[in-house]
């Protein structure tokens, strides 16, 4: 049986800097996989390689058994790989609803003369709007529906971005630090939503996160990277016991702690 996503030994270099050095992992359907590591370890580079914003020089990335290396980022998105960004990338002037509808964009079929003549497009728009409203209810952001997202609090913006990714009907969701900069309550909310997405929608996820508590609590399996190299993969408990991981996080001299 082939995996949903398979990353095989990818190497990404920027000039003399090797940002990713031989990372391999796989994600199965409905799985919640986490990538952790110290600052600058190459976590976001892994994400950017998955969505082909960066092109790894070596290795292979397979989606449902076929390689996605060399595809354009928008083509990757169309396959069903949606992502959020570490520093929120929403369409600031648009309302929450419009942002989510933007996520539906690739699922819309109408062409320009249909848009012009209205009727067919109207039905399509209604269907998509319904889908968007479901997501808004799901993420509990209905009070903000018609506000421009640039005006919303940070935690809510993060949720809107998650909603926009969900609107794309993805099969794999890449979440880049979904809880960064959030307070305890917002982090707990976010954890709840992530678990709900997995349970109710069955979408596989890859999570990059700094909040160790969050990752250990919700992830099925964890990959730890440091200086672009994988230093451990496994269940949360295994990773916690891994001496290399402890060294990377606490510093080599204090392994005994």
């Amino acid at each position, binding site marked *: 049986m082939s995996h949903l996503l398979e990353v095989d030994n990818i190497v990404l270099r920027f000039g003399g800097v090797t940002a990713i050095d031989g990372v391999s992992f796989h994600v199965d359907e409905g799985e919640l996989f986490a990538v952790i590591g110290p600052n600058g370890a190459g976590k976001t580079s892994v994400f950017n390689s998955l*969505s082909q*914003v960066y092109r790894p020089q070596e290795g292979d990335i397979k989606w449902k058994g076929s390689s996605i290396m060399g595809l*354009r*980022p*928008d*083509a990757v*998105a*169309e396959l069903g790989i*949606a*992502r959020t*960004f570490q520093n929120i*990338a*929403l*369409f*600031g*002037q*648009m309302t929450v609803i419009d942002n989510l509808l*933007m*996520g539906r*964009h*690739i699922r*819309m079929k*109408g*062409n*320009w003369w249909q*848009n*012009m003549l209205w009727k067919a497009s109207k039905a399509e728009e209604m269907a998509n709007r319904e889908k968007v409203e479901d997501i808004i209810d799901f993420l509990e952001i209905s009070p903000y529906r018609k506000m*421009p997202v*640039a*005006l*919303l609090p940070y935690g809510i913006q993060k949720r809107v971005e998650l909603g*926009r*990714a969900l609107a*794309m009907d993805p099969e794999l969701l890449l979440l880049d630090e979904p809880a960064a900069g959030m307070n305890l309550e917002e982090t707990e909310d976010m954890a709840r939503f992530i678990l709900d997405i997995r349970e109710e929608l069955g979408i596989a996820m890859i999570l990059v996160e700094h909040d160790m508590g969050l990752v250990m609590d919700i992830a099925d399996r964890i990959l730890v990277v440091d200086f672009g190299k994988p230093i451990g993969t496994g269940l949360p408990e295994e990773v916690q016991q891994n001496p290399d991981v402890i060294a990377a996080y606490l510093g080599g001299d204090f392994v005994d702690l």
Partner: protein
Amino acid sequence: MIIFWQTLAKAIALGSIYAIMGLSFVIIFKGTQVLNFAAGALSMAGALFMSILVVDRGFPFLPFTNPLAPADGETAGLALWIVHLVIVLMIAALMGLVIERVAIRPMVGQPLFAMAVITLGLEIAIRPFNLDATAISGRSIGVPWGTETWEIGGAIFPKSYLAAVVAAAIAFVAVFFFYRSRFGVAMRAVAFDQEAAMAQGINVGRVFAIAWALGAALAVLGAIFFAMSPWPPAGTVSLEIHPIWVFRVLPVIILGGLDSVAGAVAGGLIIAIFEIFAGQYLSQWTSILGPGYSTIVPYLVMLVVLLVRPYGLFGTEEIRRV
């Protein structure tokens, strides 16, 4: 009163041409966040193609004769002229595509300022071609109605006025529906955030390409209608006046809001009304105001509006959380 109606008609006609040119700037700005400083040379090249096709019976850059061209010594009829107009617009769109591919696409992700300077470089790079094509200044573009006019109740209206209004209306409707289409939505998303748009499955490269193709075609359309009588240089496209004229559209788009389709049209009409009426009704003070004072009116109007509405009349305000 006759003078008033004639002045109004002239203002609306000029406003229509400003609007077409404004739409060209707006669409490129909207798609790529860059002001196209190459609009002058680009649009003039297109107008010259028109002249080569219709008057010289040739073909730009290629040693063919134009099989569709009117017979020697005759000017093209209306239908034939419009066919040629469409051909020229297609060539213009092609030029836009080539420019985008060669000079703009490699700059994706680079600072916008660098891209703007590249368009300025393009302006200078395209000009020599125009110079070659116009050995003598001023070339006819073979307008079928020439300098003919209608006379209604003593007032005289050149047919070119109506032509300009019709062209602007068609351009506006086309751009308006384009914006409401799926592709227009993609274009707006790219304008906000290229990376985020990419993550939504939008092909940013294609948005850039289409913005340039459409922008170039609109610029050429504006240039061709500007070159008609009775604006100077009547019925011809001229190397001296044309590039200067294009940049008189800048106050138009700034007034309307750089990224607004409706703004380009409204801005064009407002600016033209002020410009033409000032030219007509303040002419007894020319000794004080100086000759050609009406050409600075657009900039004055723009200044006043920007003091009240810094984003222009219809521009997108930047929303910031405080």
